[in-house]
């Protein structure tokens, strides 16, 4: 129905009334002459209805024949509007400007979103694509998506796959980062079990391989605990993937120091500048003066959104902050708490998956400094695998033996 309403609006229509005479004869004559009649109502001999502009002009003789007196009740539609405002050039100029604005704005990119990235930041990816012409305000027709993606994959090896989808005026960049697998010793590869730190063996269970130490032995970091070389019954040797559960009593020491006077950076001056952004236009709000290099610049942008879509209109805020190093002094209590916090943090990070059996804290408080250390005795699994490197058959040692 809205389609017909639009047609009526564009071509114009006339609401009329006709009284006196013979309404039925009038309607029959109009139907015979193929004059379109709509929304006819007859009440107490007064006929009202709607017809086209041309139909109204052709209706006059039919009205005269049937003795009806016709009057226009209302004129509707674009033809009447344009005729009434023919001399007003502003309407036409505004309409042309509207059409140009809509066509121009719909042909450029308003917003760019980046999805799929985890380690690489959005700004880095946007910078890569910006160098290839993908930025806010870029004309969609000028972008050759295939060549852009090929260039992106060639320029960086951190991205294995990329796609650029332009949905209306929004561009969506989807990337997949390259994953570097961590080096892991295969389950079947021959290896030894070595000590990961110094300690005294408490529990030793060799699941595979030959144990080289016994319970109660002291070991240092890197010492061989379980060998992956097995001696067979025929006195030959073979390699295996050694596996063991080795628990030892270890000792860890953590130190933290603090000074009562320390240098901190304080904000001594702050200035803010705002810029209105619309596509590629940047209009400064207020007076923007160039700031000295000693100022640190922080920039953030906020964009208008409509129905979840980012519009190309926003404000960029640039904050210029000057940081000056100053010396501050802490009280004894503050210094003690700060140093203790550092010590606890270091010890908790260093002792993961261990069972602490005893800890000794030593504190040395001076006038301007404090020294704290903690000695932790703990029980932990010190087994670590070390791959056995298999030598080449053409090595000099093997050749001497064959001679």
């Amino acid at each position, binding site marked *: 129905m809205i389609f017909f309403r639009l047609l009526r609006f564009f071509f114009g229509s006339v609401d009329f009334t006709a009284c006196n005479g013979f*309404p*039925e004869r009038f*309607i*029959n004559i*109009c*139907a015979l002459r*193929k004059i*379109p*009649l*709509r*929304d*006819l*109502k*007859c*009440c107490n001999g007064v*006929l009202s*209805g709607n017809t086209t502009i041309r139909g109204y002009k052709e209706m006059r003789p039919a009205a005269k024949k049937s003795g009806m007196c016709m009057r226009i009740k209302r004129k509707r539609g674009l033809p009447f509007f344009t005729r009434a405002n023919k001399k007003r050039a502003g309407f036409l100029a505004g309409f042309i400007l509207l059409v140009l604005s809509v066509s121009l704005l719909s042909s450029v990119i308003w917003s760019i979103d980046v999805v799929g990235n985890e380690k690489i930041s959005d700004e880095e990816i946007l910078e890569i694509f910006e160098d290839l012409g993908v930025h806010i305000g870029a004309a969609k027709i000028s972008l050759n998506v295939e060549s852009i993606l090929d260039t992106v994959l060639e320029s960086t090896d951190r991205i294995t796959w990329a796609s650029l989808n332009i949905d209306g005026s929004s561009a969506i960049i989807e990337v997949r980062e390259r994953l570097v697998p961590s080096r892991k010793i295969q389950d079947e590869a021959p290896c030894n079990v070595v000590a990961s730190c110094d300690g005294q063996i408490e529990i030793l269970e060799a699941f595979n391989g030959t144990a080289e130490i016994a319970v109660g032995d002291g070991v240092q970091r890197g010492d061989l605990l379980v060998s992956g070389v097995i001696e067979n019954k025929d006195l030959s040797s073979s390699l295996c993937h050694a596996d063991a559960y080795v628990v030892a009593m270890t000792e860890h020491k953590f130190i933290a120091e603090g000074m009562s006077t320390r240098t901190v950076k304080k904000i001594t001056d702050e200035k803010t500048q705002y810029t209105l952004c619309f596509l590629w236009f940047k209009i400064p709000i207020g007076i923007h003066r160039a700031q000295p290099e000693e100022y640190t610049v922080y920039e953030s942008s906020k964009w208008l959104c409509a129905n979840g879509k980012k519009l190309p209109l926003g404000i960029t805020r640039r904050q210029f902050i000057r940081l000056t190093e100053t010396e501050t002094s802490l009280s004894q209590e503050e210094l003690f708490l700060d140093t203790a916090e550092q010590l606890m943090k270091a010890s908790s990070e260093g002792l993961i998956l261990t069972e602490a059996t005893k800890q000794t804290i030593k504190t040395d408080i001076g006038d301007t400094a404090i020294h704290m250390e903690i000695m932790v005795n703990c029980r932990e699994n010190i087994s670590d695998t070390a791959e056995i490197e298999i030598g080449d058959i053409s090595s000099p040692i093997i050749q001497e033996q064959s001679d």
Partner: protein
Amino acid sequence: MAKSNRRRNGNDKVYTMAEKLSDGLELPIESLPGTSHIELCGNKQAIVGGCKGILEYDENIIRFNTGRLIVRVIGSDLCIRAYQDEEAVICGNIISVDFSS
């Protein structure tokens, strides 16, 4: 007897031919010329096809000439939404539709 009575009236002869054609060729009768077609949508709208002319038009009663029959639509707030090319769309509160010759 009924067939011979029909043949006497000139108008009926055409309609009878249309009936014969629709029966023989299994065509829908409304596709043949000279037949009227009325479609009712509840009691709010009626579409009358094959309307030759309007005999009476008021907000409570509308009478159509469909050639062989005269259709009378009785109701309230009746209006002709569109009337063009022998087709009329009637809207309003339709109480009854009756036929007379």
